[in-house]
């Protein structure tokens, strides 16, 4: 059967409902923190001021803690509630999703670190628009994948997966541009490397968002699509 959003919140055990809801809320919080973190990093880039990038780095700690806490809660639910069927898939999907979110946090932390370097070198202008474009895209992906999670919306999840392909294209284009640039201006290599790391990390963020979307599909459809192509995924969704 297709799980629906509310399906998790009508157990006989109210406490179970509360626990599941709690986890979901925390997942959303984590997502919110990630978005904030990315925004902070981008803010630095935009303003040429490293302080918010530092905040972004610092935020990673909180995200890590949140991940550990959710992990802990998932373990607790498995031990205490013996979840089955959609509840079990919920726990599994959540626990995979937070791993991805945590890694996203790590990537953004790297983004922030590299932005700080750019800021310190006063080189925030280099590829700023590419970075911003990609950052916007992946930020949207993260946000969409979490929305999909909140709404059990597999269509939206599919959209996220599709969108990752675009981001990859953007990334490749930006990359090519940067390599060209490095060749042209060997002086800027160090700076360009920073940008490359930033882009690369953002691309990874997109990948993680895609993973999260795939976890949702598993949650709703019960089928693991983590290594499926977009078409296979479409087929699963339509089932």
């Amino acid at each position, binding site marked *: *059967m297709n799980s629906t959003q509310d*399906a998790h919140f009508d157990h*006989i055990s109210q406490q*179970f409902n509360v626990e599941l809801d709690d986890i979901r809320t925390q997942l959303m919080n984590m997502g919110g923190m990630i978005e904030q973190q990315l925004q902070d990093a981008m803010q630095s880039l935009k303003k040429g001021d490293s302080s918010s990038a530092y905040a972004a780095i610092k935020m990673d700690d909180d995200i890590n803690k949140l991940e550990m806490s959710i992990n802990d809660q998932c373990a607790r639910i498995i031990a205490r509630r013996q979840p*089955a*069927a959609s509840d079990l*898939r919920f726990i599994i999907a959540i626990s995979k999703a937070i791993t991805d979110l945590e890694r996203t946090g790590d990537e953004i932390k790297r983004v922030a670190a590299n932005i700080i370097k750019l800021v310190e070198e006063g080189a925030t202008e280099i590829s700023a628009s590419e970075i911003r474009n990609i950052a916007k895209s992946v930020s949207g992906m993260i946000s969409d994948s979490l929305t999909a999670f909140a709404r059990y919306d597999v269509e939206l999840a599919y959209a996220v997966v599709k969108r990752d392909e675009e981001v990859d294209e953007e990334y490749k284009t930006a990359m090519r541009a940067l390599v060209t640039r490095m060749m042209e201006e060997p002086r800027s290599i160090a700076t360009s490397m920073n940008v490359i790391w930033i882009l690369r990390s953002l691309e990874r963020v997109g990948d993680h968002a895609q993973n999260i979307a795939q976890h949702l599909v598993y949650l709703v459809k019960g089928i693991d699509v983590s290594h499926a192509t977009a078409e296979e995924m479409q087929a699963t969704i339509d089932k």
Partner: protein
Amino acid sequence: MSNMNKEKNLSTSQNIENRAIPAHTIGEVFVDKPRMTARNVDVYYDDKCAIQDVTIDIGAQQVISFIGPSGCGKSTFLRCLNRMNDTIDTCRISGEIKIDNDNIYDPNIDVVSLRARVGMVFQKPNPFPKTIYDNIAYGPRIHGLANNKSELDDIVEHSLERAGLWNEVKDRLDKPGTGLSGGQQQRLCIARAIAVSPEVILMDEPCSALDPIATAKVEELIYELRNQYTIVIVTHSMQQAARVSDRTAYFHLGKLVEVGETKEIFINPKHELTQDYITGRFG
């Protein structure tokens, strides 16, 4: 799987009719090698319908478990499979139940020989108040399965061995079976059922009177026995169904709602009712 079967049997109209799955049942109703088949079985107590249009295959050398809320008719259906319901005057059954293509409600089938083919193990361990040896030997004796004492000894030994009880009791075969612990008693009852070489063993909540450790041992035994017997188990514990069975059937208000691979049922059930029951969402 069901498709394959469909083709194989398309020849006779009887079989085509048989293949009609009731609208209220979803999942893998048919299996490749069925040992028992139930087709459109209804059971009434007086005018009360306890089982409604159940169609299901019970696969050979498999464990299938029946789960469902209290009073949904699991036990009733189980007891139909070896006609233990005959003892209830008010009980009427329609539809068709076959074992290896013999209709068990055929007037020509002697219920005695049916029950020798389809053994039963009950909720509460119920060893006879006789010695362990006599408990096991009882079935072979009444059915004349052993030609002499040494054959009987063999049957007893091997039944106990297969029930994983031989080492625990071999030194006290002449002690009363009622002196064993609950879990041992239940394994004794299983050994007793095995001793008449049944094809199918039915078990109605066989662990509900046991503590967790004894339960684990009996479950382990059940899982091992499926290599040689077809086993049908009714259980109240969903976890138990998940642990011991290859397939699981979910009953609801007398209807078979969903049946399929245990793994599927417990991770990814198809029917909303199954999902609700398994995840604790009733009422």
